[in-house]
C-alpha cells in the first residue's frame, strides 16, 4: 500500500507513526480532543509532536475557515459539540495531510451543528485543496462529497459522482432489495 509516495505496508511502528503524523489526518465520531489541552494546543499537537514550527499564516487560514478564532483559549469541556468537532478538524488539517480520514464526523452532533460542520469540511476541501475521505451512514452528509462509494458488507457496490441526498438514498434503497 502506498501513501504520498511512501510504501507503508512493510514499515515498522516508528516510521508508521511518523507517516500518520505527517501525511494523514483523522477526525473521529467522538471528538477525541485531549481534555487537558486548550483548543489551540489541541490543534497544534501534531506539529508539536513532529517538532515542526507553526506557519502562522496557515494556522490563521485553518482557524479562520473553521471560525474558531475566538475559542482558541478554551478547554474542550468549555466548547459545544460542534465547536469540539471543528477543533478536531482543524487539528487534522494543520499538518496539510495527503489525506484526511473522517469517521462519522457528524455522528455525535445534532442536525444543525452537523450540517454546519459539513459546510466547514467542504469549505476546507475547496479553499485548502484538501483530500477528504469520509465514512457516513447519513445520505445528507454523503451529498456534500464530490464522489460517493456505497459499501455493503465490505464491498463497493455503487459509485456516484456528484451525489445528492436523493441519489445516495436511492442507491442505499437498492441494497435492501
Amino acid at each position, binding site marked *: 500500500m502506498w501513501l504520498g509516495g511512501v510504501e507503508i505496508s512493510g514499515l515498522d511502528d516508528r516510521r508508521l507513526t511518523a507517516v500518520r503524523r505527517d501525511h494523514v489526518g483523522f477526525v*473521529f465520531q467522538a471528538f477525541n480532543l485531549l481534555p*487537558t489541552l486548550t483548543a489551540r494546543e489541541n490543534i497544534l499537537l*501534531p506539529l508539536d509532536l513532529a517538532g515542526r514550527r507553526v506557519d502562522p499564516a496557515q494556522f490563521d487560514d485553518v482557524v479562520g475557515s473553521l471560525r474558531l478564532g475566538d475559542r482558541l483559549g478554551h478547554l474542550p469541556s468549555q466548547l459545544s459539540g460542534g465547536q469540539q468537532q471543528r477543533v478536531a478538524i482543524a487539528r487534522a488539517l494543520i499538518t496539510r495531510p495527503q489525506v484526511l480520514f473522517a469517521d462519522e464526523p457528524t455522528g455525535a452532533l445534532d442536525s444543525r451543528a452537523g450540517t454546519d460542520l459539513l459546510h466547514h469540511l467542504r469549505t476546507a476541501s475547496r479553499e485548502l485543496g484538501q483530500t477528504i475521505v469520509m465514512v457516513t451512514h447519513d445520505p445528507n452528509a454523503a451529498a456534500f462529497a464530490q464522489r460517493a462509494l456505497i459499501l455493503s458488507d465490505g464491498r463497493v457496490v455503487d459509485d456516484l459522482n456528484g451525489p445528492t441526498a436523493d441519489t445516495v438514498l436511492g442507491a442505499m434503497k437498492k441494497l435492501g432489495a
Partner: protein
Amino acid sequence: MLRQVLREIRFHPARFVATLVAIAISVAFMAGSSVLVATEQNGVERQQSLPIAGADVVLTAEYGTDPATLRDALGSTPGVAAFEPSLVRQLSLRQGAVTSLMNLIGVPSAPLRWSEVQQGRWPQAVGEIALTRGAAAALGVGLGGQVTSGLGDGVYTVVGLTAEPSSLFLQTGYVAPAEFARLGVDPSVGEGTWLVRAAGEVTVEQLTTGLRAALAGQPGVTVESAHAIRAEAVRQLAGEFDVFRNLLWAFAAIAAVVGMITIANTFTILLAQRRRQIGLLRAVGASGAQVRRRFLAEAVALGVLGSAAGIGVGIGIATAGAALTGSLYWGVELPALDLVVAFVTGVAITVLAAYLPVLRGTRVRPLEALQPEPASDERRRAGAARGAVCGVLVVAGLALALGWLGSEQALPLAVAGSALMALGVLFGSVLFVPAVLRGLAAVVGWFGVTARLAGQNAVRNPRRAAATATALMLAVGLIVTLQVGTATVSGTVLAEIDRTRPVDLAVGSWEVTAPLPDGLADRLVAAPGVAGGVLLPVAQADFTRGADTYQGLTVIGFVPGVTIVASGAPSALADDQVLVTENSADASDGERVTLAGRDATVELTVVRSTLVQAGEVMVSGATLERLGGVTPGALLWMSVPDRDDAATAAGAVTELVDTDRYYVTGAVLEAAAIESVLGVLLIVTTALLGVAVLIALLGVSNTLGLSVLERTRESALMRALGLQARSLRLMLLLEALLLAGVGVAVGVAAGVFFGWLGAAAIAAPMGVATVTLSVDLAQTVGMVIVAVLAAALASVLPGRRAAKASPTQALADI
C-alpha cells in the same frame, strides 16, 4: 452477590493487584513480627532455662547462706540423687570484629547434665570453652580456635562443640567450673542457685516438700520445682518481648496507614472508571444502598484475600528469620491471638479505606453515569474549610513545638506539635500538591511536548495526585525525620564531646604513676588513623581547695607538645598556674589552691580548661618536678584528626594495649560508641519504614496503571496523531517522576524540619545550647535516589500498557 464480587476480582485482576499487595504487605508485617518475636522468645526461654534443664528441684539461696549447712541439708535429705551449685554468667565474647552475648555455664556434673558434646570434649581446665554450633558459627571459630572475652580479660580455647541451638539474642557456651573462680564467682559460696536431681524412687513434689522441711531453719533459702521456676522465667521474659513486639507493630501501623491511602486511592479510581457500570446498575433498578453494599463487599473480599496472603507471607518470612538465628530449632511459635488481630486489622483497614470513596463514587445519578464522557473531571475545588482547618493545625503545632523548646517538656510537646503539623500537611495536601505539581509541570514543560503533556496529565486529577503523593510524603517524611534527627543528635553530641574533650585518645596506667611499656608509645602513634602523640609526665598529689581536700589526684606535667594533640590547648603554662577541668563546678578561675606532692607543697592559681578531665589537674613541668615522684612518659595523648578513622583508630589502639594494666580513654572512644549505637538504630528503623515507602511507591504505580486503563482511548488517539510509542512511555515515566518528586520533596523538607525539631527538643533540656542541623547526605540523598528510581520503575508496566494501545482503538466506539 458474593459470586458477582469474586467474579469482578477474577475478571479484572490487574485493577486489584496493587491493593492486594498493599494489604498483604501491611498484614505480613504485623503477622511476621509477631511470629518472629514469639519464636525468638520461645528460643530464649528454652535456652535460659537450660542451666536448670537437668534438675528436678531448684534451691535459691540468698547472699550470706552458709554453704556447709546447705550441703549437709541436701546430703541428708532422702531422695536426693545429686546436687551442686549452678554456675551461670552472661559475658560477651569476641573473635575478630564479631562480638556475641553468651550465657556462660559451668559444666555440670554428669547426672545434672542436659547436653552432649558432639565434637571434641567438655572443658576441664581454666581457659577452655565448649560452644554450641550456632555460637561457634556466629563467632566464626572452630575446634581449637580462640575467643576473647569482651572486656579483653580472658582468652578461651574452643575444645568442644555441642548440639543445642542458639537464638538471636543469646548464645550458649560452657566452661569448667574452675573458670568461675577466675571470673570472680566462688563455686563453694552458697549464694545463688543449686540444682538438685531426684532419685528414682521419689516424685518431684515429695522431694520439694522434703527439702523445704530440711531447710526450714534457713530463712534465705527457697525451694521450688524446676518446672515452677521455668514458668516464672517465662512470665518475666514475656514482658520484655512484648515491648519489642509492640515496637514492631508501631512500624507496621505506619505501613498500614500508608497502605490505607493507597487502598482509598485505588477505590476512588476504580469507581470513577466504573461510573457506567454503576449507572447501569442504578438504571436497572438497584438502589444506592445496594450499589454501595456491592462495592463494600468487594472491599471485604479484597481485604480477606490480601490479609490471608499477608498472614502466609508473614509466617514464611518469620520462619526464614528464625532459621537464620537458630531459634527455629525450638519450633515456630504461632501466637494465635496476634495473627487473628493482624487478619482482622487487614480486613478492617481495607473496608475503612474503601468506605469514603465508595460513598462518594456511588452518589451518581443513573443518567449522568451513562453519559459517554464523565461530566467533569474531579476538578472540584477543595473546600476553604479544609484549608482553614489545616492552616490552624500547622500553626498550632508550630507554636506548640517551638514555644516550649528548651523547657523540660520540650520533647513531648515537640512530638505533639509535630503530629499536629503532620496532620495539617497531610490533609492539606489536596490544596498544595496540585499547585506544586502545576509549578513543576510548567518547568518540565520547557523540555518539549511530551514533558508538557506529562505535566498536564499529572495535575488532571488533583485529588488522586494528592493522595498518591501524600502516601509517599508520609513514608519518606518519617524516614528523613529519623535520619536527620539521628544525624543532628549525633552531630551535636559529637561536637559537645569534641568541645569538652580535646584529647582524642589517651593511654595511661590504672596505677597512674606506672610508666607505659617500652616501645608501646611508638607502636600506638603508628596505629592507623593516629596522626601524632605526645608523652606526658605524671605524678600524684593531694589537692586542697578551701576546706576540701581531694587525695591522690593525677597531676600531669605540661609539655609544649600538647598543642599537637589538642588544638585549643595553651602553648605555655606558668609555673604558678594549675589547669582544672572545666566540666566540674568545683573551682573557679583565679582561685588559689594547694597541691601537696611527695616532696613539696605548692600554692597555685586555678585556670579552668577542657584539657584535663575529672580527677586530673595539669601543672607546668617545673612545678611537677618540685612536687616530686614524677614518672616520665606515663601518659600518652594521641590525635585522631579524621573522624572517619575514629572506629579504626580506637580498635587498633585498644588491640595494642594490655587493658588489664592500662586504660584507653578519649573523645574518639565515646564518639565511636555513640555513632555505632545510633547507626544501628537508624539502619533498623530505616529498614522497617522502608516497607511503608515500598507501599507508597506501589501506590504510584497503581495510580498510573489505573489512569492508563482509563486513558486507553486517549493513548490510542495520541498514537493516531503521531506520538511515538517510546514517547508515550517517556510521558508515563515523567508523570511518575512528577508525582514521586512532589511526595519525596515535601517529605524530605518536612522530615528535615521535624528531625531538627526532635533533636533540638532532646538537646535543649540537657543544656546543650547549640544544635547544629546535620543531614547525612549519603543516607538522605541515597534514599531519595532509591525512591525516584523506584518511581521510574513503577512507570514501566503502565507505560508498556499505554504504548500497546493501537491507533485504531481511537476509532472504536465508546
